[in-house]
């Protein structure tokens, strides 16, 4: 079968090849069209729902385009409930815990990659072992630790436990190991301090690794629900996922409001994805080891 195909092609009858592949091509693109609808359809439908009026939301059959597009749902979430505040909270918490994670993990990753010290293997092995621990096991004691530090219901309680993580150290160690040691040595000869070498040589060269970790850390924090759920109970300190989760129980709202809220919460990540797609996809496999 295949041999005849090769023969046909070699004779140059591309028309024959075209007709032979056409059914397969139609099937393939049909399936891809289905996939496309299934993957972005829910987003588009919710995007449209965010602009629907109350009666269009529950119309049967469902309308894909609202009759009279309205901004009422957005007005509702931003002025009748502290959604803007939650957005700012999420921005603060995710930004600070990402910056903290980058600095702390870069310093640790650099040390594991380039320095020799007593207990190096043992400490690293312990870090890697913690990747096997499910988050739920730590939920209660992490809350109790945070409570004894008087950080429950504070930004500190939302941010500090999110800083660090063995996964970040692993990622940056892998990256920094590939940097040539000659640069550090040259800097040391020029009288650069230990921290200066890290800050002025290693960090600038680690940008790709840092970008990947920043995306992992930021999206992880931006989307996290269970930790904010246990550590915060004042509405003024809710983050977006927490607000989204409790929106309907606490505010008696319709699907228009939940749709608008879901859209607003995803938009920042979609924008970041548009610009940094390569790092998002790279981080996917590495981030997986966080478990």
């Amino acid at each position: 079968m295949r041999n005849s195909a090769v023969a046909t092609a070699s004779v140059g009858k591309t028309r024959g090849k075209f007709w032979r592949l056409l059914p397969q091509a139609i099937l393939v693109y049909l399936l891809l069209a289905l996939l496309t609808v299934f993957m972005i359809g829910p987003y588009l439908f919710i995007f449209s729902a965010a602009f629907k009026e109350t009666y269009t939301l529950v119309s049967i059959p469902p309308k894909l385009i609202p009759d009279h597009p309205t901004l009422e749902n957005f007005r509702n979430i931003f002025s009748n409930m502290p959604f803007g505040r939650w957005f700012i909270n999420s921005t603060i918490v995710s930004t600070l815990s990402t910056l903290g994670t980058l600095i702390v993990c870069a310093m640790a990753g650099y040390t594991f990659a380039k320095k020799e010290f007593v207990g190096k293997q043992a400490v690293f092995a312990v870090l890697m072992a913690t990747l096997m621990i499910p988050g739920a096991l730590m939920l209660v004691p992490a809350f109790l630790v945070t409570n004894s530090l008087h950080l429950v219901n504070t930004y500190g309680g939302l941010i500090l436990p999110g800083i660090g993580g063995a996964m970040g150290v692993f990622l940056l160690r892998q990256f920094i190991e590939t940097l040539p040691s000659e640069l550090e040595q040259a800097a040391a000869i020029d009288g650069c301090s230990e921290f200066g070498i890290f800050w002025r040589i290693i960090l600038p060269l680690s940008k790709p690794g840092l970008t990947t970790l920043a995306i992992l850390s930021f999206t992880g924090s931006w989307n996290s629900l269970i930790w904010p759920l246990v550590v915060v109970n004042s509405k003024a300190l809710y983050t977006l996922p927490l607000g989204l989760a409790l929106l309907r129980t606490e505010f008696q709202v319709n699907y228009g409001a939940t749709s608008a809220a879901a859209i607003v919460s995803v938009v920042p990540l979609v924008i970041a994805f548009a610009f940094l797609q390569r790092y998002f996809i790279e981080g996917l496999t590495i981030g997986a080891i966080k478990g």
Partner: protein
Amino acid sequence: MSVAAESSERHTNGSDVPLPVRKSTSGALALRRNLVAYAFLSPFLILFVVFTAIPFFWALWLSLQSGLLAGPKTYVGFQNFANLPRDSITRTVFFNTVKYVAIIVPIAVLSALGLAFLITNRLVRGRDFFRALVYFPILAAPAAAAQIWSYLLAPKFGLVSYMLSAVGLPDVYFLSDPKIAILAIALIEWWRGIGFHVILFIAALIGIPAEMKEAAIIDGANGWQVATRVTIPLMRPVILFSIVMCTIWSFQLFDTVFVLTQGGPMYSTATMVWYVYNYAFRYSQLGMAAAMGVVLLLVIAPISFIQMRVLGKGVEYA
């Protein structure tokens, strides 16, 4: 590693430090080097000890205690673990979680494999577009995905209900029917999570040398045979990785359930993590929550161990 060995290693690195004449200088250097290393590690280590190491051992200790979240606790030995199988909710929760894992893992991995083959089909142009496409749902927070689907799955006026009625099927109460709810949750998790596996498999498929497939074709293999006898066996490490990740995540299902069903109806979507959260923070049964956490650890840790071994070998094509 001895101090002397360490310092000599440093010198062979071509460092600028002049060779120490006296042994005490070499010792001082090694000390300084260790101090510098631990100074760099300290911010990480402090956070690690406070928010990972202490909570880990505290969690084990809590599982042997009984009491309230805030208040005195009493040591009860392994009583909590003995009580777990006696409690009907615990049994339900464990059964639900295992059932959910058994449903989602084969479906996710197989469908992802199919989609990866589809996207890397030689007739397809714009592979990068489809890779971005399957990543898109990953961007949504589980809580956001839950809200998105709660409208799509709403009875009567929801889009899915409408589509069912359009083809003559009866309306389904996706989230309030105890038999269906866990499947609805699985559907949402599939939508949000499938991209991970597809992207992994696409990378693996692209990485397989074309000569190997061509050789099989020359030997007279058809497309199906090439896939099942050449391509898929070569992808085994990636497939194993994907199965392991999917299993680990699925055992920890919580967010979607919390937002959409609160574990209901009739505990049909109550999962192990749901149990930990509710028993600790709602029902004031701290010891039982901690014991369930330990059970989860005993399930996850061995699976994670396989994952680390796979990762240690390097997932060749990912």
